[in-house]
């Protein structure tokens, strides 16, 4: 395996090398290399079963790697537990909107505020003006400023997706990973989401899994195509779209 020079470690926010995971002999991710720059928005595409979601699971610690290394800001993530990875600055949005239905939108955001994360810290936690301010600011960003006191279960599907993105934003992650953020959204919601992701992508690195090619065009700095757990192609949207192998396994369908 090639060893990257020191400078590169500094440049990349995320540095994945030789990442492999197998489930009972089935190799879902196979020697994957992935480098994401600071401030870059990377979109990962590929056919079903290519291992896209598994890659996110590996980075956020939900699945443990069989081999390989994941370094984020020079910290090795593969041996850390999920909450430690979050605290290191990695946020993850799930494919189906994962919010707290019985709490209000405001409470959903408050609970995500990165203070009082231990048992006794949570007991001592007070909703101070800076928390309120941050909640309202994030609610504005995710188009939910008017719905703060609604129960989250009353939100539409698209609004739930935004709320979960907002819950991540509360934590100001340096790397944000979004799994199909516009699935099930209307056209106008998709446009707003693209605008939102472009806005929040300025301050951080992002990895987005998406199938909607129009949407991908709007947000991607660079696209990685996965196939059978390996990188099939990588580069700009144009480059990838014109790659015959990509057309064959994915875009051609």
């Amino acid at each position, binding site marked *: 395996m090639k060893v990257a020079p020191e400078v590169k470690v500094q440049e990349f926010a995320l540095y994945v090398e030789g990442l492999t995971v197998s489930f009972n002999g089935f190799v879902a991710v196979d020697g994957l290399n992935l480098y994401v720059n600071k401030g870059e928005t990377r979109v990962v595409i590929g056919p079903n079963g290519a291992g896209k979601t598994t890659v996110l699971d590996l980075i956020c610690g939900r699945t443990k790697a069989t081999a390989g290394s994941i370094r984020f800001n020079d910290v090795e993530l593969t041996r850390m537990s999920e*909450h430690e990875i979050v605290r290191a600055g990695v946020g993850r949005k799930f494919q189906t909107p994962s919010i707290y239905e019985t709490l209000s939108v405001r409470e959903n955001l408050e609970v995500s505020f990165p203070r009082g994360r231990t048992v006794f810290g949570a007991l001592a936690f007070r909703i101070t003006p800076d928390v309120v301010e941050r909640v309202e600011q994030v609610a504005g960003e995710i188009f939910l400023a008017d719905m703060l006191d609604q129960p989250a279960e009353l939100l539409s599907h698209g609004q739930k997706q935004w709320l979960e993105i907002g819950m991540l934003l509360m934590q100001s992650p340096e790397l944000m990973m979004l799994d199909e953020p516009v699935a099930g959204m209307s056209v106008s919601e998709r446009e707003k989401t693209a605008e939102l992701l472009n806005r929040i992508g300025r301050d951080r690195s992002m990895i987005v899994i998406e199938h909607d090619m129009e949407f991908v065009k709007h947000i991607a700095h660079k696209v990685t195509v996965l196939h059978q757990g390996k990188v099939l192609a990588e580069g700009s949207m144009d480059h990838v779209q014109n790659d015959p192998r990509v057309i064959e396994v994915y875009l051609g369908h």
Partner: protein
Amino acid sequence: MSAFYKNVIGAREGLAGLLVLAALVFVVFPLFLDVFRLNLVGKYLTYAFVAVGLVMCWGYGGILSLGQGVFFGLGGYCMAMFLKLEASTPEATAIQSTPGIPDFMDWNQVTALPWFWEPFRSLPLALLATVLVPALLALVLGAAMFKRRVGEVYFAIVTQAVALILSVLIIGQQGYTGGVNGITDLKTMLGWDIRSDGARLVLYYVNGALLFACILFGRFLLASKLGKLLIAMRDKEERVRFSGYDVANFKVFVFCVAAVFAAIGGAMFTLQVGFMSPSFVGIVPSIEMVIFAAVGGRLSLLGAVYGALIVNFGKSYFSETFPELWLFLMGGLFIAVVMAFPNGLAGIYKDYVRPRLARAAAGKGKAKRAAPAGEPA
């Protein structure tokens, strides 16, 4: 102060709920019941501690423990060991072959006080043990299970097994524990006769005060961020974990809180009823305690108290009249409540009674609108 009023008391409606229950427990029952019946109510209220704890860990935390009898029993035994040693002075036990040790030890040819009984000569140590022993067991058990992410159902089964193990252990180690009879003939606490009518009345009030302290502490926990996190964990545990929280720690904590509540109830049981036995530790009593919480409403701390009272009144009535049928009746009640009214009596109150009260209040021409969804726990 206003934050305390709003969050812990639960504003006007929460205060009203507390006052109604307080009036019932501290005024109505003592006024209308003789000491014998009042003592019986006091006994039921000791189960309410367990039910309140179950609201915390099952209702809010989503952790169903079918072994709360273990903690109730440990608390009760810690208290009973102290009282038994006080009752076993060398003078009072002069006829034994080894005077100065509890009578059941003597019957079982034990000739010296076992080491783990020694701390229970001191009341402060015994009180400390009442809280710490169950908390420690809950901590170890909870940490072992939740750190490994044992699922809810398996957790329930393991707690059930622990209840069985502890009751079998107590029954088997007769010489050290009093066996199946438990620890009986408890008479005085620091020379104060706990069997007198006056003492029973005092203990009843102490019991009630402690119960309210637990309810208020529970409300404080639920009103904090920790309470919100418990609800969040019940909804979407993964989301909480991936928001940077170590979910297991929160579960262990709330399980420990429930254990300590149960233990306080157990100790008050021993004081008021005058004995403690393995029949309060095993599987059946542990499940009964879950039924109290389910009937009262597993999301309502006050509801749990009513649940404990009503089910136990029903039990003493029906078990006198139809002793064989009682267990079936109770099982049926549990199934019926969970199927028809998953939030128990508190849910019925919230869905049917409160809207009417609100309408009646509005009908009086008051401009005040019904309190919004802020359900007081």
